[in-house]
């Protein structure tokens, strides 16, 4: 019964969105559905947090591989939530200096702001920056012109890598105006705007058709994987 209700709800929400897109007088119906989605999205944050805690508590209690990392996740999660909810280190707002808790949780100088600025921000930036090292290593070991396609990809990579920096200007800036289209920076732009754009358009159209087909399958109850339970 619950599953049938969920499927009916999915169909109604999906159908309303489709109808409201094509029939102007029903546009407000679509907005209402979108607003319900916003409410659900806000609730999903709470569910997501609860799920995160559950998964890591289970891993901790079963002492499965890597349980030590779960301890760090839970400690960081709990501490961040606590300082955010209690607004530790937050001063009242200028507009309401006598009202406790009137300041913003992530106001400059607060504990939440400190955790964001000095823990989350550098950690995530470092993770992203590490890519440069691994990409360099992978390029050395794996980027080989073993066939025509790989050779084409390699030449394209050279043009883009050099054309997106000052190296392009230094290496090909001497070319006369009549041959300026051969300058590396212009070739890089052409690759992006013509070849990559054409390929991406094809991919986008394919994705759009796939999304439409999948959406129909979900709305009509053919694809029920979103309900869980493996059926």
């Amino acid at each position: 019964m619950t599953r049938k209700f969920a499927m009916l709800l999915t169909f109604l929400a999906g159908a309303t969105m489709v109808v409201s897109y094509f029939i102007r007088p029903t546009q407000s119906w679509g907005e209402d559905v979108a607003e319900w989605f916003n409410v659900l999205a806000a609730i999903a944050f709470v569910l997501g947090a609860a799920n995160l805690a559950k998964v890591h508590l289970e891993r901790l209690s079963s002492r499965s591989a890597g349980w030590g990392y779960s301890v760090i996740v839970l400690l960081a999660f709990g501490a961040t939530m606590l300082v955010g909810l209690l607004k530790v280190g937050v001063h009242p707002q200028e507009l309401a200096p006598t009202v406790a808790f009137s300041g913003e949780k992530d106001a400059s100088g607060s504990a939440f702001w400190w955790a964001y600025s000095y823990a989350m921000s550098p950690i995530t930036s470092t993770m992203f920056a590490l890519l440069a090292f691994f990409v360099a290593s992978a390029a050395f070991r794996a980027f080989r012109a073993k066939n025509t396609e790989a050779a084409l990809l390699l030449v394209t990579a050279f043009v883009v890598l050099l054309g997106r920096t000052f190296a392009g200007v230094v290496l090909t800036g001497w070319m006369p105006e009549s041959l300026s289209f051969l300058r590396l920076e212009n070739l890089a732009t052409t690759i992006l705007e013509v070849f990559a754009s054409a390929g991406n358009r094809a991919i986008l159209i394919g994705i759009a058709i796939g999304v439409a087909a999948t959406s129909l399958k979900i709305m009509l109850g053919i694809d029920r994987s979103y309900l869980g339970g493996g059926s």
Partner: protein
Amino acid sequence: MSFLERLDRIDRRWIFLSMGLAVAVPIIVIGITGKTFPEVATPTTRGAFDAIQSLPAGSRILLSFDFDPASAGELQPMATAFVRHAAARDLDIYCMTLWAPAPPLLDETIRKVIVAGHPDLVYGKDYVNLGFQAGNESVLKVICTDFRQSFSKDYRGTPVDQIPMMAPIKSASDFDCIVTMSAGYPGCKEWVQYIATPALGSDDEILLVSGVTGVQAPQMVPYWPRQMRGMLGAIKGAAEYESLVNEFIKGSNPAADIGPQFMEAQRRMAPQLFGHLLMVGLIILGNCIHFGRRRALAGGAP
């Protein structure tokens, strides 16, 4: 073991060290000398700059900070340049984000650019921070027709009805220009799909400009220049745009001091140059090893 084999099996920590040096040395040199490479704007960047230049003073510009600290290396210089440009052009600045980790970045940008650089601008009258709204693309679907339904309060909790500059805002089409700085989902693509595209060809056509990461740029190019009037692609696009904004500010006020905090993207182009040169060198070396070994194997074969 031959020389080529030894080179092929080189400890990858040497590659890591080379990359570290290729990036660190230019950072240090630029920190000391303050010199940067000149930038020539590509058409996509020029389109973004011209779109904002074309707005008359007092126009309403919505800036959406759709990124997190992980991609701030590429997108923060864009955000700083967009806000500076808008403030220098006397536009009414509305800031928001669809990303939960973004509000501190947004707040920091406002403090660094507007509060410190334009103390004459008044909060609520010249600029407003609407903060984060959960819901991804459904937020965009709602603001298409009813902005207040998604943003009923600003970042400080003040009801938008009490904010003077929010009075004329009923829907997304009330903005003269929308800028999204996007690191992924939800971001540029959703702004194109739900905000720019439905209004195409109508009287309420929306001027959309974007700044995206290097990974996203090829995926977004198909939407330029119809749905998006301009696009900054990666740190290169940020450097080009920053250079244009600095030129514009210098042109309108020759005494203006362009501090290093407003040349972040241009300063990052030198580490990028040497990082890219190292990559090219490593790829060439890797291929030399590959073909050298293949030749050696073919020569030794009966």
